[in-house]
């Protein structure tokens, strides 16, 4: 809305018609036009929306790739389970295969981790634990039942290979009658027996796990440390 001051009207008219002022008229009109023309010819800058869109697309691609990778891993895990079950069917007579706890295998797919296998002492062949009655028995030193053969993470594709290795490591069960007459134990045999004993212990990790804890009973304070300085 315009104000209705009559004086203003005359001032306004004077200044409106005043366009021939030499001081003010543009000296470099053409230069200004050149600048303006260059500016008008320039392509408009990409708006922020374009950048936001690009960022959103990138994020979507990352999320999609992560999801697909997860799905692929799940598929591979389920395939591994199927393979293990097939192997069990193929080798039903191998006792070591029966020792594999199926529960752990089935849980592998849900936990998305490679299954860990344990050997159960109860599933050992009876012939190992029970002596033959009324027969001369070659008494082999009773060894502690191996709790773990190994505990490690394995790729799913190595399940069958592991099972074969476990099957190979099983001790051969021999009846006493098959052994023939008793042979006197020589030094060499003792040495071999000791060596075997050590091997078993090493496999069962007894040499590592059952190492005696440092104590003061030995008379040597091996791991004794001093934290507070004594004055």
């Amino acid at each position, binding site marked *: 809305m315009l*104000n209705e001051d009559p*004086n*203003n009207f005359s001032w*306004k008219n*004077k*200044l409106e018609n005043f366009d021939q*002022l030499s001081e003010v008229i543009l000296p470099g009109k053409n230069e*200004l036009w050149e600048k303006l*023309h260059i500016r008008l010819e320039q392509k408009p800058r990409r708006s922020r929306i374009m950048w936001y869109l690009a960022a959103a697309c990138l994020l979507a691609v990352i999320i999609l790739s992560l999801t697909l990778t997860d799905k692929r891993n799940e598929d591979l895990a389920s395939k591994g389970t199927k393979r293990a079950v097939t192997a069990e069917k193929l080798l039903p007579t191998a006792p070591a295969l029966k020792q594999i706890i199926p529960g752990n295998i089935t849980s592998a797919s849900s936990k998305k981790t490679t299954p860990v296998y344990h050997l159960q002492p109860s599933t050992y062949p009876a012939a190992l634990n029970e002596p033959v009655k009324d027969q001369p028995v070659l008494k082999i030193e009773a060894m502690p039942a191996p709790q773990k053969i190994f505990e490690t993470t394995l790729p799913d594709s190595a399940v069958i290979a592991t099972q074969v290795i476990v099957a190979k490591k099983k001790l051969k069960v021999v009846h006493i009658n098959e052994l023939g007459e008793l042979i006197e134990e020589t030094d060499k045999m003792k040495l071999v027996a000791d060596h075997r004993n050590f091997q078993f212990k090493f496999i069962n990790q007894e040499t590592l796990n059952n190492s005696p804890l440092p104590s003061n009973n030995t008379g040597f304070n091996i791991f004794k440390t001093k934290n507070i300085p004594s004055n």
Partner: protein
Amino acid sequence: MDIAQLVKEARQGSASAQKCLFDMLSDKMMLVCRRYLKSNEDAEEVLLDGFYKFFKNLSSFSFQGEGALYSWVKKIMINECLMLLRKKNVFIIVTESAIDDFPLEEEALNNLSAKEIFDLVVQLPVGYRTVFNLYVIEGMEHKEIAALLGIAEGTSKSQLSKAKLLLQKNLLQKGNSYVKRRSK
């Protein structure tokens, strides 16, 4: 060439039509900018920005005559000037105690020529000059000016009266002939 045709061609992106419009309007717009801004550099910068906006938004303008076109471009230029003043943070309301004693003689100012008015207006402080331009030259009301500049309506009124007093004072200080001319 017909202005309507020029506007139509400029809207389509014709550089020659745009140049014709620029040549036709730039001098007047430069005067408008110089009334609001003290330096020629600032006025030229604003002129370029204003014309850039004018050509970019020409498609939204419906041509209804030369006067309408002129008013529209002028409005763009004034807005650009005010924006620059705000950006440079030079829009300060100045109070001058000395001018309060000076009696206001409106008629003395009315007898001034266009050049005299222009020279005097340019010399005013930014606050006075802006309010004076918006009220006297553009014909806005104090309410509008207050809303546009973000000041109180009373401030706008006082700025205007002080601007007029300062104009008179400047005239007398120069020992100018304008007032004398009036008294004859």
